[in-house]
């Protein structure tokens, strides 16, 4: 018989080893699906790897895809640190996309347009995130449920826009008018799609880390998340901390939408996010809610997504494998996290 036993402290190398173990376990578990689909496991993963990280162009594509997940991952990480269960990054992303698209379509100097797009997108995401936070503070509504339900509301609102006032009258497609060319985020490497927003995402991660680790607000977020009662007893205004966290989290998720509009699609359509908001949860957990870990975790998921598409074309294994990998990785990581707090000890059968 085995028993879990509490650990007094966690070895430092665990921080790196656990996500790697979780990812390895995930890939092994999911290889069963590849086999069921009748493809060679090594071939399939090989294609995934080379298509996502095999050459410099592939790497830039993976980074472009990682950028929104870095933002949503950061959004979830900061929210979960405060135990504000923001599952609404998807809706906040969409709100950010819509707001930035609205601003980007107004003619003005490019730099100003980009700046205003970012501000508008962040603000829109923040406002959306404020709803579940306020409902929780004022009405004790479970934030998980309200933020989830809000995703559907925002999605339908977006659809109403692009099938209504924003509808492309010429083609009849449900897509918004494009933003001004001058508002398109500059491409950093000629011949790729690597845009300014990716760099902003990469800079955002250490900034959020600094916020959590080195500021009083970050301290209050951490304490409130771990023990709201002790936080209140210690003089922290728990409600204000939750509100600040929601605003920050929503703003970060909103920026994910800004990047997609300004750097990738230049307009809004119904499938602007293939679930980047939900992937953000996986990213944040793989990163153990550490903002610095969000970057490699997002790159991993992005590689899985781009790789899965190539693998699907090459081997016929459905690209939805990447969705299964995401879910499995999240669960595997949760199990792995168990070992930071506990160790398994064998106890005699005859006790």
């Amino acid at each position, binding site marked *: 018989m085995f*028993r*879990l036993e*509490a650990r007094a402290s966690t070895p430092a190398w665990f921080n790196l080893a656990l996500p790697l173990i979780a990812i390895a376990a995930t890939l092994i578990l999911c290889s069963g*699906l590849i086999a*069921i*689909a009748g493809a060679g496991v090594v071939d399939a993963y090989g294609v995934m790897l080379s298509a996502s990280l095999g050459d410099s162009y592939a790497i830039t594509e993976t980074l472009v895809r990682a950028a929104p997940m870095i933002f949503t991952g950061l959004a979830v990480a900061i929210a*979960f640190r405060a135990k504000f*269960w923001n*599952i609404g990054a998807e809706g906040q992303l969409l709100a950010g996309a819509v707001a930035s698209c609205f601003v980007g379509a107004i003619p003005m100097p490019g730099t100003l347009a980009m700046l205003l797009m970012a501000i508008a997108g962040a603000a829109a995401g923040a406002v959306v995130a404020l709803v579940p936070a306020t*409902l929780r503070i*004022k*009405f*004790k*509504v*479970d934030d*998980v*449920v*309200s933020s*989830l*339900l*809000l995703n*559907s*509301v925002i999605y*339908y*609102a977006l*659809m*109403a826009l692009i*099938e*209504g006032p924003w509808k492309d009258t010429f083609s009849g497609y449900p897509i918004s008018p494009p933003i001004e060319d001058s508002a398109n985020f500059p491409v950093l490497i000629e011949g790729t799609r690597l845009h300014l927003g990716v760099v902003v995402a990469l800079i955002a991660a250490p900034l959020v880390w600094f916020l959590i680790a080195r500021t009083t607000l970050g301290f209050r977020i951490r304490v409130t998340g771990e023990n709201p009662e002790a936080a209140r007893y210690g003089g922290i205004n728990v409600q204000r901390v939750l509100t600040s966290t929601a605003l920050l989290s929503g703003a970060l998720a909103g920026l994910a939408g800004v990047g997609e509009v300004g750097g990738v699609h230049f307009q809004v359509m119904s499938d602007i996010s293939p679930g980047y908001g*939900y992937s953000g*949860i*996986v990213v944040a*957990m793989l990163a153990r809610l550490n903002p610095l870990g969000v970057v490699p975790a997002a790159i991993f998921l992005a590689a899985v997504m781009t790789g899965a598409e190539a693998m699907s074309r090459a081997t016929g*294994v*459905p690209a*939805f*494998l*990447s*969705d*299964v*990998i*995401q*879910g*499995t990785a*999240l*669960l595997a990581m*949760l*199990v792995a*996290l*168990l070992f930071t707090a506990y160790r398994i000890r064998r106890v005699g059968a005859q006790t």
Partner: protein
Amino acid sequence: MSAVFEQIFQVGFLAAIIRIATPLAFATLGEMFSERAGVLNLGIEGIMLLCAMAGFTAASLSGSLWLGVLVAMLVGALMGALHALFTVALGLSQHVCGIGVTLFSSGLAYFLYRLIFGQQSVPPSIDGFKPVPIPLLSDIPVFGPAVFNQFTLVYLAIVAVPLAAFVLYRTPWGLSVRMVGENPRAADSAGVSVMATRFQAVILGGALMGLAGAFLTMAQFNAFTFGVVSGRGWVAIALVVFGRWDPWRSAGAALLFAFVDALQLRMQASGLGHIPYEAFLMLPFIFTIVAMAFMSRNAVAPSALLKPFRREER
């Protein structure tokens, strides 16, 4: 408005409410059992989707609808067991595990569906359940054809509500479920296995979620699409709160939601002029959020909800 009012008392409208409420009732009862035992199951959305797919596939391959229902329930029970393994046996965060189960199950559903049916321009469909009128009862004016000329699964849902109430309030197992959800230590010291009881409740809940999924693809739409569940699972979680963790009230909450949903469908169809149809689609979700705001302050969740139980924890 009077036109809308008249429509409410039409047979078709009443029947639509019942049909919309059925999968919600199954799902809500499933979530309720799980939460009553102290386990929040956010995997519900994905479990419903996977079961909708599994049931549809089994029915479509075997030609037997009831085999499809059985497969859906078994898959639901299995996913319930998976969630229980993480949250009950390992004591992991119920929130995050639930999201994980949803992501995993939905991914698996998409993957297997695409693997089995390939990419088709028109999704394959099956010959789904047909309404079975109940003699005599279906002759009652208005009410009869609306309620008693329905799918067998609808009758099953109507029976499931009192049955769930009986199990929860009148059987020793139901008492154990309530006790492990309120004070697991008390159940443990009375010789009731907290782990076993929670596992059973979450598995039963999963099977009920499976029924909900089966209804969608085998009675309501007769086909599987990726958006077939589209938030019904999340709504069920809200309905449990709204129904105060009670089978009767939960069923009532499902009916109320179904009423709003049927109403918005009617309003869409009646083409209330310039209002975009998405506004109506939003309505049930906004209604649920607002209802939660009114209900949550006084709603008293099972005391041990979200709390893992480890006996030797000091």
